[in-house]
């Protein structure tokens, strides 16, 4: 019995050793020839587990970006090559993945993973090795309060600033026309709460009274009681700090209770193509902040949309765009500084350059503060005539903002 167990363990060890060497040789094939071989970029993404859907979106964006760069002469005249590992949405796994990418595979650059929970441990590893860390998703405040001096968030705004344009628009109204009361319901999640509470802070400053303030756990399946509280308050505005299913369930529950707000804003869900499928014709007037839309006329965006659509058959969504943006940001720094290697001096030059410069990306021109927070705001979209359109800010608007939401 003992012998067979030993035997099995031996085979297992051999098999895993083979797999590991297989992985590593593909990662660091051209090491040694400094400046000659491709620029290798190490990434860990949640390709399985809780975040696998957005994780795969980010992967598509990264891969499309790499192919695009290689089709157009590469970076510093060298091809780029991605090594993507699967962290299974696991925070311990993501740290050891970056450790491996930097230490064993000897990658030249790293790109960030998806979502706050994974960005924080990954950024810590990158910081320990002095690596520049640009990340496509991780908008919650806690990402920027850990003392990372190497981190940059490649999107227009942090969670708290998502609704800034909407708050500005409400503030611009004559006092008599502003809403009087507001109800907030947010998922117990740093990103989702950040969006709703960012708007709450602004509205309270304007004197809009908070009549409901509910936080619910991510596993909430029944929204009847939350909807009952909101409906009972008869608030003028309802704000949902939501992901996806919670927003859809909440909206249906609110409709079942015949609650008719003058304004309804939900994060994330309304920009999802599945949303009108689920809600039907009652989407009219629903507001949502968005970090990206294929229609935006920023300089490189049209080319991105065309390249991506031809490659994947569908236009890019926000996850893909943020991944592409990450690529653009790092590439801009690399081209400007003229180096791309793991040497701490080169990495520090890249970090310093990004600290002081503006980068043109598919989500607009980006600049960052000292903690890596982007200094823009999100576009505000609204369902107008059954289509989701940009309504704010006015210079980017595709349709007029509907201030009095029709009944749903």
């Amino acid at each position, binding site marked *: 019995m003992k012998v067979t167990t030993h035997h099995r363990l031996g085979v297992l060890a051999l098999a895993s050793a083979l797999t590991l060497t297989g992985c590593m040789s593909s990662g660091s094939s051209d090491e040694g020839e400094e400046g000659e071989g491709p620029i290798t970029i190490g990434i860990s993404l949640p390709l399985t587990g809780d975040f*696998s859907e957005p994780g795969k979106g980010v992967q598509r964006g990264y891969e499309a970006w790499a192919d695009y760069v290689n089709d157009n002469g590469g970076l510093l005249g060298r091809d780029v090559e991605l090594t993507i590992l699967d962290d299974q949405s696991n925070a311990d796994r993501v740290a050891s993945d970056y450790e491996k990418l930097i230490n064993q595979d000897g990658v030249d650059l790293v790109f960030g993973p998806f979502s706050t929970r994974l960005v924080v441990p990954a950024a810590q590893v990158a910081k320990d090795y002095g690596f520049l860390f640009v990340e496509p998703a991780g908008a919650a405040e806690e990402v920027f309060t850990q003392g990372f001096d190497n981190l940059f968030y490649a999107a227009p705004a942090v969670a708290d600033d998502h609704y800034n344009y909407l708050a500005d628009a409400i503030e611009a109204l004559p006092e008599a026309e502003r809403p009087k009361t507001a109800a907030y319901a947010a998922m117990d999640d740093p990103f989702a709460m950040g969006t709703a509470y960012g708007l709450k802070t602004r509205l309270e400053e304007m004197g809009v009274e908070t009549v409901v303030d509910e936080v*619910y756990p991510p596993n909430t399946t029944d929204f009847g*009681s939350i909807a009952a509280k909101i409906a009972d308050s008869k608030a003028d505005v309802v704000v949902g700090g939501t992901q996806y299913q919670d927003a859809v369930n909440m909206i*249906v529950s609110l409709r*079942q209770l*015949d609650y008719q707000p003058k304004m309804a804003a939900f994060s994330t869900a309304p920009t999802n193509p599945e949303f009108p*499928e689920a809600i039907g014709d009652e989407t009219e007037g629903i507001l949502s902040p968005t970090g990206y839309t294929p229609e935006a006329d920023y300089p490189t965006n049209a080319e991105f949309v065309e390249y991506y659509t031809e490659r994947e058959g569908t236009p890019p969504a926000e996850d893909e765009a943020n991944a592409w943006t990450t690529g653009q940001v790092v590439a801009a720094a690399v081209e400007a500084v003229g180096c791309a290697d793991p040497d701490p001096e080169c990495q520090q030059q890249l970090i310093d350059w990004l600290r002081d410069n503006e980068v043109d990306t598919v989500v607009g021109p980006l600049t960052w503060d000292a903690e890596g927070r982007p200094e823009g705001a999100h576009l505000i979209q609204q369902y107008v005539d059954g289509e989701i359109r940009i309504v704010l800010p006015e210079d980017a608007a595709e349709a007029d903002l509907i201030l009095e939401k029709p009944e749903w």
Partner: protein
Amino acid sequence: MSLFFQSLVLGVLLGGLYALLAAGLTLYFGVMRVVMIAHSAFLILAAYLAWFFTTETGLDPLLSLVVTVPLFFVTGVLMQRLLISRLRPATLTMMSVLLTFSIALVIEGMLGFVFSGTQRRIRLPYSGESIELFGANIAVVKLIAFGLAAVSLGALFLILKMTQFGQALRATIQHPDAARLIGINTDRIAGYGFGLGLATAAIGGTALALDSTIYPSLHWHWIGPLMAIIVVGGLGSIPGAAIAAMLLGLGQSLLQIPLGTTWAQTIFYVALFATLMVRPQGFFGGRLAQRF
């Protein structure tokens, strides 16, 4: 006051749904001493089949029951005969946790593979409709789900009390050896009992799909509360499960007014701990659980 009354109405509707979803779970345990972790995975599977049926045919999701109920019954019988009956009786309860856990994972994986992880919702013309009753709104979809629960639990009760099969099933639950002595084929009865439990999952899943957004891993959010319900109600007792479901559903809905959603959810686990401390065999029925 109107918020209280509205929450009361919502709580009753929710309790009815909980009762339907938990009924099968307590039946498996009663008949077979099987802890069926995959019950909620089958609920989500039924919900997906209802969604798929409606998107493909455009017909009402309730019509999918014509297919899913017999399908789930047969699946249940086969699962019991081919898999669960092979577990050693001495370790059956323990090993059934492992076995059904793996079945839950397989179902979740298959749903993700076939339908992708995208979150789905059946689009119904009447999803936002409601009937007003003394100032409270009763959503039509929730009322249909409650009706389904009432009808199926009533039917289950009649089958168990009035038919010869029901008598044989109850005999099997109460004393398998004695049941065999008087000529009941307990193996076959257990298979049918399991099928019956899974058939309730088909109805429960369809009821669930009427008013919620579904995704493959949703079943993990359901299994905890459902397990708590059947323990509080007394393992193996269907009326017990129904009463516990109603009380906990009402409690959750009403506690949400003062405590908020997060704390209101803990009522299930508080009730579970209290039951295990004060009356481990459950508060209703549950003569059976004393033997464990």
